């Protein structure tokens, strides 16, 4: 999200903002909003409609929808393809951030690489920004778990030899394959809804802490993009247009200018790509390119990637006051537990600058702005 605020507008307010974000956005084990109770029918609507459901319920605005991949709803989602257990797990976790590398980060635009593109995206130097990184939570994991069983049997049925049981699969056009895609769409829609709700609470938090109206804050969604998802798309292969299933694992979509699946107001520049780094360095906004369409089915990287295992990171952080270290750098961090902060220490990740420069020079997405964190909440 971009804002109408400059970093000096929130000077001295970051601790308040982080503390309030932490209260308003459920993060730790078992935490959820007391004002959120979904019955089964509503839960099914979430899975079918995605972010549209959230907007109907007052989370965010219709304008947000235009800036979400697939308009916040993957078609063909069928809640009947989802198990009772997934529904149970999903019910408890909708509108929660989750642990691991999930976060909400308040930052500012530290550097602009492409003025024209940044202008179209409504981004400018020193502007306050907010990044939200979360997904389908336990719901998605349960859908995966349920379908792994289905796929293990399917692989046997279709006589697919597996190098590893976790790679079990079925032809996309088979009954098992299409049922899975209908269930996966539910998980994607759950994730769109989850982010939409959290974004709404981010806005409420800013209003509450800074005592400003939404019109003054102008916390507008720049873009919401998925990673770890399979999509049915049309691409040109050897000069021929083909319908493909593009699986972006550890990758994110990066469509070129003029692509019809990107919002009208961005069509002249290409699709925005968000690449978060670790909590101590920076993150990037890039833009998709024609080269990505040709070379990577319109895809680019989605993050920095770890260099240290979580355990190694925790061992490295032992005896250190990570929260203090971050504070000394001007970054306020709050997490549900010490462990989840320590495993995310900056040196546990590759330097996102290096990673982004690789995709930039490869031409599969181009740098627009660099965001530097000021406040982070973690699950």
């Amino acid at each position, binding site marked *: 999200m971009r804002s109408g605020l400059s970093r000096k507008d929130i000077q001295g307010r970051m601790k308040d903002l982080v503390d309030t974000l932490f209260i308003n956005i459920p993060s730790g*084990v078992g935490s959820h909003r007391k004002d959120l109770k979904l019955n089964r029918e509503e839960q099914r609507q979430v899975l079918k409609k995605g972010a549209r459901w959230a907007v109907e319920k007052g989370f965010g605005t219709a304008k947000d929808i235009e800036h979400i991949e697939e308009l916040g709803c993957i078609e063909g989602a069928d809640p009947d393809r989802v198990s009772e257990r997934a529904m149970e797990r999903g019910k408890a976790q909708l509108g929660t951030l989750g642990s*691991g590398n999930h976060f909400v980060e308040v930052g500012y635009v530290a550097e602009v690489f492409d003025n024209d593109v940044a202008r179209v995206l409504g981004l400018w130097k020193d502007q306050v920004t907010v990044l939200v990184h979360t997904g389908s939570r336990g719901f998605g994991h349960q859908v995966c778990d349920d379908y792994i069983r289905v796929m293990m049997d399917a692989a046997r049925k279709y006589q697919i030899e597996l190098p590893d049981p*976790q790679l079990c699969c079925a032809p996309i056009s088979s009954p098992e394959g299409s049922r899975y895609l209908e269930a996966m769409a539910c998980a994607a829609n759950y994730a769109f809804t989850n982010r939409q709700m959290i974004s709404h609470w981010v806005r409420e938090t800013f209003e509450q802490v800074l005592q400003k109206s939404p019109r003054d804050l102008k916390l507008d969604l720049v873009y919401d993009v998925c990673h770890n998802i399979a999509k049915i798309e049309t691409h040109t292969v050897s000069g021929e247009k083909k319908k493909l299933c593009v699986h972006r694992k550890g990758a994110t979509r990066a469509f070129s200018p003029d692509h019809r699946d990107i919002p009208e107001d961005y069509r002249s520049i290409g699709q925005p790509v968000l690449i978060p780094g670790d909590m101590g360095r920076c993150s990037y906004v890039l833009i998709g390119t024609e080269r990505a369409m040709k070379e990577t089915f319109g895809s680019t990287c989605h993050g920095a990637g770890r260099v240290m295992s979580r355990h190694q990171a925790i061992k490295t952080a032992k005896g250190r006051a990570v929260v203090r270290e971050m504070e000394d750098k001007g970054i306020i961090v709050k997490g549900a537990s010490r462990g989840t902060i320590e495993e995310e220490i900056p040196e546990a990740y590759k330097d996102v600058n290096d990673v982004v420069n690789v995709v930039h020079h490869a031409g599969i997405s181009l740098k627009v702005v660099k965001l530097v964190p000021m406040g982070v909440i973690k699950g």
Partner: protein
Amino acid sequence: MDAGAKAKKRRKRFEILDHTADIGLIVYGEDLKELFENAAEAFFHLITDLRRVRQKEERQVELKGESLERLMVDWLNELLYLHDVENLLFKKFKVEVIGEEGLRAKAKGELFREGAHVIKTGVKAVTHHQIQVKREDGGWRARVILDI
């Protein structure tokens, strides 16, 4: 207790395998019951500081099996499900029946309480990746990779 039995007692019950993206558990057991009990304990040892968890709640787990490997993943996933949905932390496990055809077990622990308990690692899923359950040195050994 004779020397042999003592040596067996001293054998380590589990170790944690480090990996950049996931985490692995190597679990040992004298027999299958112990193997599955130790796997569950290793799993919750990773999630929380077990010294702070009391045995106040009990859940019964019953699973149909197909192979020991699948059963191991299902067992840990079942406990993860209970952790996720009911916010339970388990510390003591009693496997009553175990075989290729299935498992019946009891798990004891308590509800997660903010302040009283810590979460060391949030586990997202138990995977079938490189899963192994096999006999070794007169006992059993299992390998499980977790998505965290």
